[in-house]
């Protein structure tokens, strides 16, 4: 069994706002193994991105703060490293790409300048070595005319090309883990497919682990080895991808899967989960999904369900299965 490259242990990241404490990431634990693709799924504001930013230690403080837990990356607790050590990890051992390729590149520097920067910084390459490596990287991410691209400015490139450049930058130092925070949300569907293919291919070639943050279940089905479902700052279900799609347990996950359009079936309206995501400020100690859940029981509104695994390693936090598991 491959060893864990990242392990989140009871991570708590809170934001202290004027209205109260927002528990954006509330006691999250999961792990990513070497070479594995883990998809973190959930709707907007459920804490997916904050989890990733906590791993990079890029939570803006104030108002944000990592108040508890551990993030073990490659045997080290990220939260205890010095800033200088952290800088050596960022871009070198963990790469990250963002949702918005249009704004993620500096508009006044050439692509070449920006691509060569991490190489010269982390791999101590000379300008010439970095130049050659950068050209190789551009070819690797499937953009032709690499030499020309090197001297181009970001606004001369299309969205898809820019996202490829971002990927090239993120993988330039051969990181052990690549975090992709909704990498295809801003792109059209055909480019999406190309970018996902590219990510999968690079992951195989470089033997990286991939932490893919998305709200698109189609992407999850296509890319993931393992899925983590988050809701209101908590992990509510996690399982290998086949198991999750075949046998979703938590009512929220079931709702998500039901809300997906199916090709060939005509529907007037798509299914939606009734109700709203709860206001994240000062939530009490109960199942946060209980307001919207069709199976709500008394216990759901009183106590937080424990996060337990069944015999297949399928973990879920829901009182429905708690009883079953006890029997």
């Amino acid at each position, binding site marked *: 069994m491959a060893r864990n490259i990242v392990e989140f242990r009871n991570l708590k990241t809170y934001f202290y706002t004027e209205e109260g404490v927002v528990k954006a990431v509330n006691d999250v634990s999961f792990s990513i193994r070497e070479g594995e693709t883990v998809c973190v799924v959930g709707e907007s504001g459920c804490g997916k991105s904050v989890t990733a930013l906590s791993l990079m230690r890029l939570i803006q403080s104030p108002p944000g703060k990592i108040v508890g837990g551990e993030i073990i990356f490659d045997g080290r607790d990220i939260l205890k490293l010095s800033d200088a050590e952290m800088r050596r990890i960022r871009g070198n051992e963990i790469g990250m790409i963002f949702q918005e390729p249009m704004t993620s*590149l*500096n508009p006044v520097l050439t692509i070449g300048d920006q691509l060569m*920067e991490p190489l010269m*910084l982390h791999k101590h390459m000379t300008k010439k070595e970095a130049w050659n490596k950068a050209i190789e990287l551009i070819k690797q991410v499937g953009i032709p005319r690499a030499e020309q691209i090197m*001297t181009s*400015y970001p606004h*001369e490139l299309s969205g898809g090309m820019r996202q490829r450049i971002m990927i090239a*930058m*993120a993988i330039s130092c051969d990181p052990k883990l690549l975090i992709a925070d909704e990498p295809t949300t801003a792109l059209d569907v055909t480019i999406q497919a190309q970018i996902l293919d590219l990510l999968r291919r690079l992951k195989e070639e470089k033997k990286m682990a991939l932490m893919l943050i998305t709200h698109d279940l189609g992407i999850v089905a296509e890319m993931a080895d393992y899925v983590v479902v988050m809701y209101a700052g908590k992990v509510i279900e996690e399982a290998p991808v086949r198991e999750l799609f075949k046998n979703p347990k938590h009512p929220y996950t079931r709702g998500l899967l039901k809300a997906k359009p199916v090709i060939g079936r005509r529907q007037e309206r798509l299914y939606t989960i009734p109700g709203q995501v709860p206001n994240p400020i000062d939530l009490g100690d109960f199942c946060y999904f209980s307001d919207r859940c069709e199976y709500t029981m008394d216990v759901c509104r009183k106590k937080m369900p424990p996060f337990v695994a069944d015999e297949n390693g399928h973990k879920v936090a829901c009182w429905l299965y708690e009883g079953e598991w006890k029997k």
Partner: protein
Amino acid sequence: MERPTPTLDYRRKNKKRGGTSLWQDAFRRFIKNKYAILGLVILTFMILFAFIGPYFSPHQDVPDVTKANQPPSKEHWLGTDNLGRDVLLRLMLAGRISLTVGIAATLILLLIGVSLGAISGYYGGWVDVIIMRIADIIYAMPGLPILIVMGAIMSDLKIPPAHRIYYVMFILGIISWVGVARLVRSQILSLKEQEFMLATEVLGLRDSKKIIKHLFPNVLPTVIVAGTLGVASSIISESALSFLGLGVVPPTPSWGYMLSAANNMIDFAKRPWLWIPPGVAIMLTVLAINFVGDALRDAFDPRQKI
């Protein structure tokens, strides 16, 4: 129908210079501006006039009382002053001082303004508070009285006339960095929230590198514009200072000093060749610099395509 062949040739030509960058766009817009070209021509003329001109003058900048107060003639194109010195030559020599002071004072104010503004905007918090409060204090003090006080102090300390000019540059720089600092700070404040700055963070770059390599090029257009306009205001301040007898000290000429030397009823009424040339020189130079500055501001505004 014959259609022009695709733009391959154009692309190749373009690529040699590395794509159409912000700078090339700006340059293209700049040279289309008639006022900018006019300003540039005047400015070039003034610089040549001041720095090369004196070598072509047949006269020496020494007093010769026998020729005092002559009106313009073939020998002295702009006449002579009360000590018999050639006004045209004086005007050129004064241009050297005025232009040098303008440019040097601007460099000093940019150096202070940009670095403090960048630090203040980037780090925020108490660093920002301290720098900005100092800026507020300097901003709240009226410039001219400070200059007068400084001038008086310099006279009191008996600073040699040859060195005075450096102090003038320095003082002008010190009291006028505030505007640039605020400008840069506000730009950095919005730039550092951009996603590409988060991207540099993710790459593990150090703060100094982030500021110098990633933020600075983004504020450079603003700085250039502020700088050009700063040259104009420095020249005017120096003129005012010299006019009040607090800037450069005779016999060193500057345009402002030449004006002040003609500050009496007789000169004003009877000898216009003493005060019209330096006045026109100041006006032309400042006007030209303002034209160029305005054109630069327009040229660097990306919303104005082509």
